[in-house]
C-alpha cells in the first residue's frame, strides 16, 4: 500500500468518524463509536494497522506514524465529546418537570356571591351601610307598612309562601347596640323582597340613611329558565333632606357603570306600591351594543332593577315626616346581574351547584 493510498484511506475513515461523532449524543453512542474504530478485534483503524505487511519496508515507519496519529486524534475527539455529553447529562436525583404537579385543591366563591361581594364593595365605597336581615318576616313589615294593605292586588297568595306555624325570625344589627326592631317575633311568611328591612331599619334609626341589604327572598314561582322559587336580592335605601329622583339616577349610573363597564343607563316609569314615582332601570345591551338583538328582545335595553322615590305612606308608617325627608329605594336581583355579566342563560344553573359550572369562575 503506497503512502498516497494510506493517506486516502485515513481521510475516508476520518470523514466517516467525524460524521458519526457529530451524530453521537450519549455515552452509549460514544462507546459504539470507539469500538467501531479502535476495537482490537474489529476496529476499522486496527484493521488498517494490520495491513502494515502490505506497505513497502521503507514506508512502514511513516505508515505507523500516520495511523497512530489518527488513532490518537480519534481517542481525544471521543474523550472531548464524552465531556460534552457528561455536561448535558441529568444530575442524580433529577426530576421530570414535565410531569403533572401535585394538585393543591382550591374552591370557588359561588357566582351569585361574587356578584354580591362586588355590589357590596361598590356601595361601600359610596358610603353605604351593609346589613343582613331576617328571611322570615311578618305581614306588617313585608307588606302592610310598605303601602300594601290587606287585599292589595300586589300581595296575591300566589306569590307569597306562608309558614304553617309562626316562628322567631333571625336577628340583625347586633353590632349597633340594642335594636328594638331586631327580632321578628312571629314570622308568618318567607319575605318576598328585602324591602321588609326598610321598615325595620327606619323604625330603628333616624335619617339620613344609606343602606344596602343583600339576601335571599322567596316567591311562589315554578322553576324554569328564568324563575326560581328562591332568589337573591339587593335592597337599597337612601333617605335624607332633599334626596331627589335625579340623585337616584346619578347613583345608578355610577353603580351600574362600575358593575358592567361602559354602559348607558335609562329610567322608565313603572309601578311599585312602596315608591312614587317608580322607575325600572335599564342598561344598554352589551351583546349588541344597543342596536337590538335576541338578548334584549330587540329593544337595545336590558331591565336591571326596580326603583323609585320612597312613598310618603311608607315614611308615615315608620314615623318619618314626608314633608321633611325624601328618599329613594331600589331592589336588584343578583341572578339577573350574574346572568348578564357571565353570559348564563339558564337561572337554574346557579342552584344546581354543578362543579363544572362553578369552576369556570376565577379564583
Amino acid at each position, binding site marked *: 500500500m503506497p503512502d498516497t493510498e494510506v493517506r486516502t484511506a485515513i481521510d475516508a475513515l476520518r470523514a466517516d468518524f467525524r460524521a458519526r461523532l457529530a451524530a453521537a449524543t450519549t455515552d452509549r453512542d460514544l462507546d459504539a463509536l470507539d469500538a467501531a474504530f479502535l476495537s482490537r478485534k474489529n476496529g476499522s483503524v486496527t484493521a488498517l494497522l494490520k495491513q502494515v505487511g502490505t506497505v513497502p519496508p521503507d514506508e512502514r515507519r511513516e505508515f505507523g506514524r500516520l495511523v497512530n496519529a489518527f488513532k490518537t486524534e480519534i481517542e481525544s475527539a471521543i474523550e472531548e465529546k464524552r465531556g460534552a455529553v457528561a455536561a448535558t447529562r441529568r444530575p442524580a436525583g433529577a426530576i421530570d418537570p414535565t410531569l403533572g404537579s401535585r394538585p393543591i385543591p382550591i*374552591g370557588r366563591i359561588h357566582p351569585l356571591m361574587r356578584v354580591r361581594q362586588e355590589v357590596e364593595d361598590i356601595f361601600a365605597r359610596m358610603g353605604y351601610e351593609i346589613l343582613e336581615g331576617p328571611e322570615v318576616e311578618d305581614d306588617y313589615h313585608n307588606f302592610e307598612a310598605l303601602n300594601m294593605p290587606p287585599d292589595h292586588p300586589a300581595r296575591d297568595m300566589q306569590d307569597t309562601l306562608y309558614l*304553617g306555624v309562626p*316562628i322567631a325570625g333571625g336577628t340583625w344589627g347586633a353590632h349597633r347596640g340594642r335594636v328594638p326592631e331586631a327580632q321578628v317575633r312571629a314570622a308568618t311568611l318567607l319575605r318576598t323582597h328585602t324591602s321588609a328591612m326598610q321598615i325595620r331599619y327606619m323604625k330603628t334609626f333616624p335619617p339620613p340613611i344609606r343602606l344596602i341589604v343583600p339576601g335571599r327572598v322567596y316567591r311562589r314561582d315554578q322553576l324554569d329558565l328564568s324563575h326560581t322559587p328562591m332568589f337573591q336580592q339587593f335592597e337599597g335605601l337612601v333617605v335624607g333632606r332633599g334626596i331627589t329622583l335625579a340623585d337616584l339616577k346619578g347613583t345608578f349610573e355610577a353603580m351600574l357603570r362600575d358593575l358592567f363597564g361602559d354602559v348607558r343607563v335609562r329610567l322608565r316609569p313603572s309601578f311599585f306600591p312602596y315608591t312614587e314615582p317608580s322607575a325600572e332601570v335599564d342598561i344598554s345591551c352589551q351583546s349588541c351594543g344597543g342596536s337590538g338583538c335576541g338578548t334584549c328582545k330587540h329593544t337595545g335595553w336590558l331591565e336591571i332593577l326596580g326603583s323609585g322615590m320612597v312613598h310618603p305612606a311608607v315614611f308615615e308608617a315608620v314615623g318619618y315626616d314626608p314633608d321633611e325627608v325624601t328618599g329613594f329605594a331600589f331592589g336588584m336581583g343578583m341572578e339577573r346581574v350574574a346572568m348578564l355579566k357571565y353570559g348564563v342563560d339558564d337561572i337554574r344553573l346557579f342552584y344546581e351547584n354543578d362543579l363544572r359550572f362553578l369552576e369556570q369562575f376565577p379564583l
Partner: protein
Amino acid sequence: MRILLSWLRELVDIPDSAEDVARTMSTRGFAVEGIETVGTGDAVIDFEVTANRPDCLSVGGMAREVATAYGVKLRTRGPGASPSGSRGGPKGPAPRSSALQITIENPDLCPRYVGAVADVELRPSPTWMQTRLEAAGIRPISNIVDVTNYVLLELGQPMHAFDHARLAGPEIRVRTARPGETLRTLDGQLRTLSPEMLVIADAERATAVAGVMGGGNSEVSAATKTIVLESAYFNPLSVRRTSKKLGLKTEASVRFERGADPATAVNAMRRALALIEMIGAGRARGGVIDRYPARIKPGVLRLRREKIAGLLGTAIPDRDVRRMLERLGFTLAPAPGGWRVAVPTRRVDVRREVDVIEEVARHYGFDRLPTTFPALTTAPPPVDPRIQRARDLRSALTAAGFFEAVTFGFIAERAAAPFAGEGDLVPIANPLSELFAVLRPSLLPGLMDAVAHNRRREQRDVRLFELGARFMRSTGERQAVGCVWTGAGAPEHWSGSGRPVDFFDIQAVAERVCQALGVEVHTTPADERWLMPGRAAAVFANGTRVGVVGQLAESIADDHGLPGNDPVYAAEIDLDALPPAAARRAVRVEPLPRFPSVVRDISILVDEALPATDVRATIRDAAPPTLVRVSEFDRYQGKGIPPDKVSLSLRLTFRSSDRTLTDAEVQDAMTRVIAALKEKNGAVQR
C-alpha cells in the same frame, strides 16, 4: 293589553310606525311585550299595563296616554261614532218600568248600575268588529256579546248582556248572595256563593256574579229576542275578594278589582246601544236607566311647585305641568305655590300629591331629568360584622378546596326529618310541591343533593359548603355554615400521595371554619341520627356546643340518591352560637421565644377506648407550665399490641420564656408525666 295600531290612530294623530309608538310609550311607563304585524300594514302592540293603571286597559285609555306623549289632541267621539266616523245614539226616555226594574240593595258594593233594554236578533257580528276583537285576543261569539266586548276594549267598561225573557220579574236586583246559593257560571262550573259575594239577581235567583262572570240561567242565545244590558261600577275590593275566593279571573274582574271608572258607565251604555243599532243587531227599547246611589266625586289634590322640584331634582316650567296634566284629563286651578288639581275618577292611582308629580315626571321624561349624587352628611355607620364573617368563611373554605354552593331554603319533609326533633320542622302552608314542603332545619340535605348531582356527572371528588339560614320551630331562624366532602382527601397524583377523605379531614374543616372566625374549638364523641354511629362528634367552643361533624349515615346518602358507596363526611356549625366577632378583631402580639425549646417523645400503651383528649389532659396537668405543646404523632394497633389496646406516641415540647431549660428539669417533668399517665390512664410505657 293588546292594542291595534289602526284603532289607536283613529283616536290620535300619530306616526304609523308601531316601533316608534312602542319606543315612545315604553319611556312613559308602558313597557312593550311585543309587536305583531297583522293584515296589511297594521300591527298589534302588546303593552304591559301596570296594576295601578286600569284606566289604560282600553284603546281609549291608551290613546289618552299616547296623545299626551306625542303632544297631540285626543279625538273625542260621540257614543254612536262608528269606526268610519258616523254618529248616532239612542234617544228618548228610559224604558217603562214594566220592561225593567233595577234595585241596588248594597250601594257600598255597587255604587252605580246602568241598565237598558234592547230588542235584538242574534247573528255573527260584522267582520271589522270581529277583526278588532281577535286582534285584542278576544274570541268573537255573537253580535251582542261582541258589542259588549268591543265596548270593553274601546272604553275599558266591562258590560254584560242578560236574556230579558229569562229574567224573572223582569227585574235586576243587585244584592249579596244568600247562604248556600248556587249559580252555574258561563264557564259551566256550578259555583257555591257565600253571603259576602255580590250577585246580580232577578226577582228570584242569582243570574250573575257581579263584576266577575254571568250565569248560564240568563245567558243570551240564538233564541234571545230581548236583552238587558248592564254597565256598572262595582267596589274593587268586593270583586277582588269574590274573584279570589271563586278562583275565577276574567277580563271584567281584572278591571273591576283594579278600579273601573264610575263616570264611564253611562257613556259605555250609550255606545253599546248605538253599536247594536249600527251593526243591525237590534234597537234599544227607550233610553238608559242610571242608578247611582253612592256618587263618587273626583278627588282634589294640591300640587306645589316646590314639591315637584324637591322630588325630581329640577324645576318643571308651569306651562309644561299644566299642558301635560290637562292632556291626561286633570283640571288645574291656580293655588298659592302651585295648583289645585281635580283628578278624573278613572285615575284610581292618583290619590296624593306625589302621584300627580309622577304624572308630570312621566310625561316630562325621566331622560330629561338631571343626574346628581346625594351628598354624604354623616359618617357612614359600621359594616354588619356578618358581612365580614361571610367573607372570612369564603376565603378559608375556598382555600381548603371547597366550592361555595347555594341551595334552596325549603326542602322535602323526608329529607329534613332526620335533622330536626319531633315536631320541630317548620312547614310551608302553601308549598309549590312536596320537594319544597318545609323550611330546611339544616344546610346539609341541600348540599347532599348537590353532591349527588355532581356524583351523577362524573365528579368523584366533591367538596361543597354553603352559608345561610336554617329554621326550626324551637330556635327560629339561625345562620349556619355547612360543609360536605366526598371522594379524595388528598387528590390523586402519580406520586401516590392521593388518599380518600376521612373523619380527620372534615374535623379539620370544622376547626378551620371556627379558626377563621377566631374561635378555638374541640370535638367530643356524639350521637346524631343522621351520622354513622362511632363516626360522629360534637364541636364545642368555650363549653358551648356549636356544631356537629362526622360521616353521614348510609341511609341518608341513599335517600339523596348518592351513587356508589363512597363515604360522605359533613360538618355544620351554628354561626349564631359562636362568640361575637368583635373579640377576634383585637390582636395583641406575644414576644417571640428567646430561648430554645426541648422536645421529648413518649410511646404508651393504653385502652383503645380511651379518648386522646384524656391523655393530653393528664399530661398537661402533670407537667410544669414550661410544657407548651402536646401532639400525637403516631397511633398503632396490630402486631405486638394486645387487642383492645393501642400504642400512642406523643411529642411534648417544653420551653421557658426566661431561661434555657436544663436536661434535668425536663427529665423530671417527663418522669412526673409518665407516672401520672400510669396512675390516671393505666398507661404502660413502651
